[in-house]
């Protein structure tokens, strides 16, 4: 489980479906913990996707975080300003990266930087920066609403020097606006979005199971035969949540299944994340609502699930960005036409 994508690659097998199922189980336990699991990070997914044999040898077993986000570049990943310049046998990186998951615990960070600002997306490359590289500093860690077991930090790159062949993919700058290089990295996300969706499923299921148990203790009855129009509102709320969770799960499984079967799943992956992010957020809120004081108190975990669930609708592309991806593909619109 720790490194499904590497293993899957070596075996030449798609394991996406296994992975999303496993992730749901793990996040039923704790999502912060999963994110703090060596090798689970996005950085590793990127390395697995594009690294050369030689790079796989050097970095394949290193726990790698991923640093894209900057203070002025969140959803708009193409607007990053961290730079990388070639100086002899080394790249020199300068900039600031925020909100890096596993910033402290990881052994290396895949840093996105531009080697040619004029080239826009075409100039954006990713680099493996190992901890301890000169000029690479973990500035501070954040305090967060949820997933508190996971460390999130800011890196400052101040004339940070790394070997020339730590660049992932080619160093060629493509002048055309939509380049294979940028797309290659973005493609990593097609595979990981269902994983994030699956995290949301685990959190939501934990909240739902707890809520059901508590409601039954106070006399709620769940009988799948009775008409939904003829039951108490708390029971109907519960059923609707269960149905939404199931719908999100099926969208997630479908996206993973498509990846396993070599089908292009970019739209379906975003559908899964859009749905799981939204459903998980609303559902965990509702659980707290139904539980009353038990949902507000930190003595039980309902409030934690509500705090944790919210991140699913934010990282690796906010819910709005997922809708944008779905809408563009579903409607056949370019990024110019639908901004």
């Amino acid at each position, binding site marked *: 489980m720790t490194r499904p994508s590497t293993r899957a690659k070596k075996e030449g097998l798609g394991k996406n479906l296994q992975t999303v199922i496993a992730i749901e189980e793990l996040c039923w336990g704790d999502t912060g913990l999963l994110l703090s699991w060596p090798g689970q990070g996005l950085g590793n997914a990127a390395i697995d996707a594009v690294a050369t044999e030689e790079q796989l040898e050097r970095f394949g077993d290193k726990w790698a975080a991923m640093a894209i986000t900057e203070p002025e570049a969140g959803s708009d990943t193409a607007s990053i300003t961290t730079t990388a310049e070639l100086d002899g046998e080394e790249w020199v990186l300068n900039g600031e990266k925020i909100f890096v998951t596993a910033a402290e615990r990881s052994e290396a960070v895949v840093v996105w930087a531009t080697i040619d600002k004029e080239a826009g997306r075409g100039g954006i490359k990713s680099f493996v920066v190992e901890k301890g590289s000169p000029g690479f500093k973990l500035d501070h860690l954040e305090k967060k609403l949820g997933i508190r077991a996971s460390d999130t930090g800011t890196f400052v790159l101040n004339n940070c020097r790394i070997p020339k062949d730590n660049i992932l993919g080619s160093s060629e700058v493509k002048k055309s606006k939509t380049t294979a290089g940028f797309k290659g990295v973005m493609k990593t996300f097609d595979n990981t979005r269902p994983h994030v969706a699956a995290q949301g499923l685990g959190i939501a299921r934990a909240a739902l199971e707890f809520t059901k148990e508590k409601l039954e203790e106070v006399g709620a009855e769940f009988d799948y035969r009775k008409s939904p129009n003829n039951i108490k509102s708390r029971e109907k709320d519960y059923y609707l949540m269960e149905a939404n969770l199931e719908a999100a799960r099926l969208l997630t499984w479908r996206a993973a299944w498509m990846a396993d079967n070599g089908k292009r799943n970019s739209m379906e992956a975003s559908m899964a994340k859009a749905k799981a992010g939204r459903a998980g957020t609303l559902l965990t809120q509702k659980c707290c609502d139904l539980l009353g004081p038990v949902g507000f108190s930190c003595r039980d975990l309902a409030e934690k699930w509500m705090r944790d669930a919210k991140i699913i609708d934010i990282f690796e592309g906010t819910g709005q960005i997922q809708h944008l991806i779905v809408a563009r593909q*579903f409607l056949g619109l370019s990024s110019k036409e639908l901004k």
Partner: protein
Amino acid sequence: MIDFAMSKEQQMVRNEVAKLVKGVVVDTAHDMDEERHIPPAAIQKAWELGFSISMIPESYGGFGLKDSPVETALILEELACGDMAFALAVMLPSLFIHPIAEMGTEDQKEKYLPLYCGETYKPCTLAIQEPHVGSDPVDLETTAERQGKAYVLNGKKCFVPGAAKAGHMLVAAALDGENNLFIVSGDVPGMTVGAKEKNLGLYALDTFEVSFKDCAIPMENRLGGEDGCAYDQLIQKSRVAMAAIGTGVSRASLEFVKDYAKQRVQFGEPIVHRQSVAFMLAEMAYEVDAMRLMTWKAASRLEAGKDAARESYLAKLYTGEMAMKVTDYGVQVMGGHGYIRDYPVERYYRNGRGISILEGIATL
């Protein structure tokens, strides 16, 4: 085993239905709704594809093919994507034929199936829903009482599709607190079929209130004989069927406004270039997919012969909610035009309302 792909056979069936819908439904759905009437010729054309009788043994007039709830769900989605009223009318005889075939005694099958499994469409139906707030298919107010060699039915049903012309119908009633189905012939004394109902949606479908007052039917007309029938199984199938239909109606709305939004220009650009419009479409797109997956999951369990109480319940609940949301968005994307009956989205919206409310008007 998890598989999200359709088999070749399933695709073929779906394409066949899509062809039929294109041929006899798409261009006429509006008129059928306005005129509150479905041309019998169109129904007969669909009947000839044999959806309702393919799983009935050849000895009773059917095709003797394997029963496939998944395939039926595909058919229903496709038909309902054309028009929900048409879908329900075409599949009406299934409401009587399938429970008899699945749960009837040998005598009942022999007596009733050949009547309805012929080459021409003959209406027969099922009466479950009751005309009061809190109507619940498993908590029936209609009762059956054993009196000598007869069962005596008392109670009221509503939304019984095709009741006026039905040669026979199955009537759901509680017998000593247990839910049962009874075979009732169209001309039995004590049964009254009211005038055609007027409803929010499904204008083209004939539905009726049917009341029973000391309506005595022969003892051998209890479905399944002395042991009764697996009533809950019928409810499960009917819920999945409605889920499939809900998916179809919602998809119809989505497909229509998708094209519209790309063509409609306001402020110098197609409205679909605006996020608030595009995001509605994105949400509609994934909710329709989710509805279909919920439907398929429940149908697959039924196909595997497993209990699908939970899955069918959730599928109907979900598609009921989402059909409202999706068809509402459909109207919204078109603004004032969506409100006007020249466009089909207001019909989808009215019809979509039925998914969560109606029980037992379709089955797999």
